[in-house]
């Protein structure tokens, strides 16, 4: 069966098995991945995926089942097991399909160019990334140069008459380069993404990986102190992605967010503005509708320093007596929808990186953080994470540093933002985030 047919049948079968409401998400996709090493193809893959996930409601009880068998019998079995699973759940008065159903018209989610690229051409692209990284003086090795893409279609059908589908494509390339030797080996990551390979800049990606590694050669542990800190765009994006996860109404309602009582309050410096935008044509997480069929939209989260709203799906919205913000997020047919950000976008400011560093005057430029997810307490917001980067002396980048930790708490950090950089970029880790570099007034840096 096609994904659309399978989703439709699954809903019918779940209702036939006694569900009061049902929903099915089906997908079909193909993906490619090329990894090159030392000028040769190290691995090349070509994959197909297809499956369906069924959510069955029995009054306020919800069950979920997913599987890869899209035959009539397979779909019937899944629908029945979703309905059966619902029996074991406790009653939840807020559970149910959204009232706000529909799709936002979006152009450009799928690029025909992607399918036109032969695998051989994508290999050339990955090789170009690797060559560009190796060409930079000081690079001792390029561990990885990878090109990867995916194209697929999604169909969502529910028992309240919603039926939607869309196609999307995505292409990425990244490289990880080494500079230095032995215990002083440093690594750097370069990354680029877009709707098709034609928009990727292989030389830029390779040079970025190399540049980040080379800049850290000879890094030492700095002395401990409190000082201004500039986070580069990748690091800023990691923090913003984490903050986005704490703005989920689910985390808030379950007492797992430090932002729980802060809606409408000042949580950040006015320089920082953050929005969730599921409609940005360049956003990897953009789609016409969310994971339960509510139309995608843009939601301002932090503006003028105030926290305007949390992110809601239908269930958390009902519980808070609000409207969904279209943030029922769905990783794949293998998981039921849950509240999550789409694309988090930080509004760019005026200053280029050089100006931010100049303003910091005497401080630290952080290009790499490690252990963010284990190092941040999502409830209290306190964090302590490993980092590497460069010292800032007299308003300019100076000696590289590593094996340091930066510590603080997220609310103080948001309020410490003094300037937002002009050069925003998409970073596909920890969700989908577009962020520029950030200048923070002061953070605690611990070294030797």
């Amino acid at each position, binding site marked *: 069966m096609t994904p659309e047919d399978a989703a439709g049948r699954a809903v019918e079968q779940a209702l036939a098995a006694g569900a009061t409401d049902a929903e099915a998400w089906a997908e079909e996709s193909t993906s490619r991945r090329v990894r090159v090493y030392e000028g040769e193809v190290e691995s090349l*893959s070509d994959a*197909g995926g297809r499956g369906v996930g069924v959510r069955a409601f029995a009054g306020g009880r919800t069950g979920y089942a997913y599987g890869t068998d899209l035959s009539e019998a397979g779909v019937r079995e899944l629908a029945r097991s979703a309905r059966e*699973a619902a029996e074991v759940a*406790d009653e939840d008065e807020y559970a149910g399909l959204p009232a706000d159903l529909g799709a936002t018209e979006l152009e450009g989610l799928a690029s025909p160019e992607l399918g036109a690229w032969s695998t051989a051409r994508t290999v050339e692209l990955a090789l170009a990334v690797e060559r560009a990284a190796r060409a930079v003086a000081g690079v001792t090795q390029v561990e990885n140069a990878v090109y990867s893409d995916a194209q697929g279609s999604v169909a969502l059908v529910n028992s309240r008459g919603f039926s939607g589908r869309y196609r999307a494509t995505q292409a990425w390339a990244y490289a990880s380069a080494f500079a230095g030797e032995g215990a002083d080996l440093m690594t750097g990551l370069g990354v680029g993404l877009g709707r098709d390979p034609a928009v990727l800049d292989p030389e830029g990606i390779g040079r970025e990986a190399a540049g980040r590694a080379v800049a850290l050669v000879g890094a030492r542990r700095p002395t401990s102190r409190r000082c201004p800190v500039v986070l580069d765009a990748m690091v800023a994006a990691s923090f913003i992605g984490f903050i986005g996860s704490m703005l989920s109404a689910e985390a808030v309602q*379950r*007492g797992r967010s430090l932002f729980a009582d802060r809606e409408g309050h000042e949580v950040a410096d006015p320089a920082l503005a953050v929005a969730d935008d599921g409609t940005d044509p360049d956003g990897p997480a953009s789609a016409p509708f969310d994971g339960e069929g509510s139309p995608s939209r843009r939601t301002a989260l932090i503006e003028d320093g105030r926290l305007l709203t949390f992110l809601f799906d239908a269930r958390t919205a009902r519980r808070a007596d609000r409207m969904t913000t279209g943030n029922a997020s769905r990783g794949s047919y293998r998981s039921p929808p849950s509240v999550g950000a789409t694309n988090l976008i930080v509004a760019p400011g005026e200053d280029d990186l050089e100006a931010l560093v100049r303003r910091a005057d005497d401080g630290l430029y952080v290009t790499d953080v490690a252990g963010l997810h284990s*190092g941040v307490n999502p409830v209290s917001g306190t964090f302590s994470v490993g980092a590497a980067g460069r010292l800032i002396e007299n308003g300019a980048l100076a000696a590289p540093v590593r094996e340091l930790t930066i510590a603080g708490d997220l609310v103080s950090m948001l309020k410490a933002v003094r300037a937002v950089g002009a050069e925003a970029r998409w970073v596909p880790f920890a969700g989908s985030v577009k962020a520029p570099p950030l200048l923070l007034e002061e953070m*605690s840096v611990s070294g030797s």
Partner: protein
Amino acid sequence: MTLVAADLAAHVLERALGRGGDLAELYAEAREGFSLSLDDGRVERPQGGRERGVCVRVVQGESTYYGHVDGVAEEDLLRVAESVSQAVRGSGRGAVTLGSASGAPEHPVRIRPEDVEAARKADLLRACDERARAAGDEVTQARIGYGEVRRRVEVYNSNGRAAADDRTRVRLSAQVVARRNDRVETGTDTRGGHAGFELVEANSEEVAERAARRALTLLHAVDAPTGRLPVVVGNGFGGVLLHEAVGHGLEADAVQKRASVYAGRLGERVAPEFVTAYDDGSRVGDWGSEGIDDEGTPTRRTTIIEEGRLRSYLYDLLRAGRDGVESTGNGRRESFRYVPVPRMTNTFFAPGEATPDELIAGVERGLYAVSFGGGQVEPATGDFVFGVSEGHLIEGGRVTAPVRGATLVGNGLEALAAIDGVAGDLEIASGYCGKAGQSVPAGVGQPHVRIRELTVGGTA
């Protein structure tokens, strides 16, 4: 149950080698799972999954070509094999003859989890919730998770290998939140194994109670100290340190790419003589154990550090071939959607002679790191950073106040060399290890271990 019949498998391998290749492999998997959680006092998210799929891989020289597909339909298998073969530049190879399927050593499953009624699993979660809340008035939230999965795998390759494994894992996890005024703290604990429902049938409320105790303890925590301090690392989950800071650097893919600080150091002394460490995927019933790895190689015990000397790396077939050695049975994959890479199974320090109390008694001022919230390491340098989720001060040879927000920052080689005591209380804990975009169950463990000095980064 047979997912792919041997004659079809042979046909797929021949098709995959249509334009040459040194090795072709067909990996088929049927995965059935069920999970359920309790959150905010409510049983929710009952979820069943039922997946079938195959991965076809051709290795030629230094290159790997592969494809995977959901489902095990004959036409899909042949199409994937054809598509993979198209990427190879060479000439075809002849017929493939498969040996008879070899069974894997069994890890005992006394009670098949899928035979246990879902309502009993829900009751288990409720009992855990109750116990967590009974641990103290300051407990405000408990999240308890139950998961079971059965993975039946079949591996065929063009060297005649035919092997199968039937793996059942069960895991219970608890995350408990405690609050006093503005102070909010979280404690976690897990119990998991390559075993049946019997693993969680008895005394499983202990998991919730331990998580609750951790959260409650942290309410009294003082800010962590900073600086260079002696550190006693707890048993069980404390083994994350070994896993991250040493184990990943011993995985042969990192070593062969010179992306490991341990490359070229076999036979070298890296730790004091009383330190021995293993990776052992054959330990009966442990979380990271399996009968065969995901390339059909039987799992086994590999000594990675023997009396202080670096003894072996961890290999899959591909990397073993390059080094002219045997696979150590560490070719693992998350599912049929991935190719195998060298991964740890259960990795742990062998027990020593000391007692935990003796290790602590020898510290004037230091940190007792009981458990980690996770960590990260750069294998190329061995640099690591770990968040200490449960830690205490050691003052005058005694464990005193709990601390919060501590991180350990250091280097694997330096930390190994600085070990100055190993206790006898080995324990293996259940975790998930992420690498190359793949997450696999990994057992981490150790007895209590003392490190003479590490950089502790705190909140102060």
